[in-house]
């Protein structure tokens, strides 16, 4: 028989007292470990807006904007948003989430004092701010914006922010709480290819700027005369998606009578010159002229323009390789009209003269 039993036997009243006390103490102790059903007040109208749902790693650039309404008017000194994989239970930080570089983008609104709140990054997985000595009570709706947050790096993952407010500046003295959910998503990568394009056509007739309608390849000046200017026209149209546009050059020789003895030619105009009858002249430009009345200005919605030496009305020139039209950027189609003139002196050798013009369009992408 133990001494305690002896005591019990010797003093049953004392034993009852001890048992009662032990029972109370034990029950009291147990209640400490029992779940606490008296939770903090629920923060309402809670919302977490993240600036990007990208789950890309090494990308601590996301802003987390918390909007909520605190139910109590207790003066707060700190608040936090624990980022967890679950809404309740122990908090596991989602893979990849990081607050190490988080900042307070702006002072919180409605949380208390208008200034003096600072971010705290010392607790991994928890976006925190505090202001020791805050005196103003929360009012209205609250907004807290953290910047430079690294999202969880698992795509299409839901995560939770457990918002808590505290009276202490070191996240002690819990007041209110609320949970919000957010989610990362994978990215949609869009790809496509636009081929480099240069649409160019030449002929003697065209409808609008539509290269599908271009036709003809010969210009006949008929009989040359020392008293009248012979003229003729050809057309071309061009467009490109080349970022630096295009340049069109004319390439060829002047009018030549290949079947004539000595293969005489009609002198080309090496500089811009007005048409002059009775003088050997072969020249061209890209304008609507009056002397002689021939040609047309460019048309179409593009941004093309005339070559430097071929854009003056009634001024003609022919130098092989000259630029006759250009565009400095990607452009819709323009149609150009090349006007040719031929003047001959009285002693121009008889015969059939011809020339071949090759136009080359070069786009720069």
């Amino acid at each position, binding site marked *: 028989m133990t001494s305690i039993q002896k005591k019990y036997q010797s003093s049953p009243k004392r034993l009852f007292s001890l048992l009662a006390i032990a*029972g109370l103490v034990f029950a009291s102790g147990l209640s400490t470990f029992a779940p606490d059903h008296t939770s903090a007040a629920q923060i309402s109208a809670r*919302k977490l807006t993240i600036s990007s749902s990208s789950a890309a790693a090494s990308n601590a650039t996301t802003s987390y904007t918390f909007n909520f309404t605190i139910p109590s008017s207790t003066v707060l000194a700190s608040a936090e948003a624990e980022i967890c994989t679950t809404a*309740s239970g122990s908090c596991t930080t989602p893979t990849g989430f990081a607050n190490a570089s988080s900042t307070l983008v702006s002072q919180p609104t409605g949380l208390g004092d208008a200034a003096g709140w600072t971010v705290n990054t010392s607790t991994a997985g928890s976006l925190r701010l505090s202001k020791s000595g805050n005196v103003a009570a929360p009012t209205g709706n609250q907004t807290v914006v953290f910047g430079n947050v690294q999202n969880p790096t698992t*795509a299409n993952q839901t995560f939770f922010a457990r918002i808590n407010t505290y009276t202490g500046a070191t996240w002690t003295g819990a007041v209110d709480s609320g949970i*919000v*959910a957010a989610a990362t998503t994978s990215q*949609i990568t869009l790809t*496509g290819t636009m081929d480099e394009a240069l649409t160019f056509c030449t002929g003697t007739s065209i409808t609008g700027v539509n290269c599908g309608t271009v036709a003809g390849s010969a210009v006949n000046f008929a009989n040359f005369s020392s008293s009248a200017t012979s003229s003729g026209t050809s057309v071309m149209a061009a467009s490109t998606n080349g970022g630096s546009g295009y340049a069109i050059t004319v390439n060829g020789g002047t009018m030549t009578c290949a079947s004539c003895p000595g293969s005489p030619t009609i002198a080309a105009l090496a500089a811009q010159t007005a048409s002059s009858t009775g003088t050997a002249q072969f020249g061209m430009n890209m304008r609507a002229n009056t002397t002689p009345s021939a040609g047309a200005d460019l048309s179409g919605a593009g941004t093309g323009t005339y070559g430097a030496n071929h854009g003056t009305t009634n001024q003609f020139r022919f130098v092989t390789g000259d630029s006759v039209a250009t565009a400095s950027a990607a452009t819709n189609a323009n149609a150009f009209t090349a006007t040719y003139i031929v003047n001959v002196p009285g002693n121009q050798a008889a015969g059939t003269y011809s020339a071949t013009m090759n136009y080359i369009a070069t786009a720069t992408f």
Partner: protein
Amino acid sequence: MHKRQTLSLIIVATFLVILGVVSGVDAATNSTNYRIDEDFIGPGGQLESNSTNYRLDQGQSSAGNAGGVGESASTNFQVQSGSTTTSDPRLSCSLGSSSLNFGALSTSVTATGTATFSVLNYTSYGYVVNILGTPPTTGSSTLTAMGSNGPSTTGTEQFGINLRDNSTPNIGADAVQNPSGTFSFGAPTTNYNIVNSYRYVNGESIASSVRSSGQTDYTLSYIINASTTTAGGAYSGNQTILCTGTY
């Protein structure tokens, strides 16, 4: 001896009372051989729950009612029942497609592509889905986003989306409520909810639900038209959808 029995009884009773307190706050009931996570157990079947004046429609035990949710009414009684579920918020936002290749862009044929995403939320005042990202680019050239609603027009540079089942061009699908419109309520926002009308404004809201909703499956329809001045090159761009719930 009588005192000893009394003492033992008191000790046992004290512990039983204490244990009773503890078990009363334990949400889960379990032992080695069973576990009940939610210890509120309702009637177990329609056949056993009828009389002249009442009936309990026990969905969980009857074919065709998956949720145990239902309304029972008779002349004298009315019961609305449902499963007890977590009060935790939930927001699921998942993208079903990770890449779209539009192939060769053309001035005469509209390039198209679709992507799917699903949204589900719980215990919230609804959600909003925003789309983020610039149109595809090559070098310094970016496809022209359709800043206002309009039809697909070949020969005009356009980058646009909507969330409908279109005929011009023939792409896309309307939103699908899962499991049904009784439980799911998400819908495209007005500007992205017009058949054959496309638009793309970075950051705009493209879908939403005004209340807690089951899963809604959306199809994003993309169109790209090129013009003669659309810069040549390989275009690429990234887009993300952003789901935000209010709780």
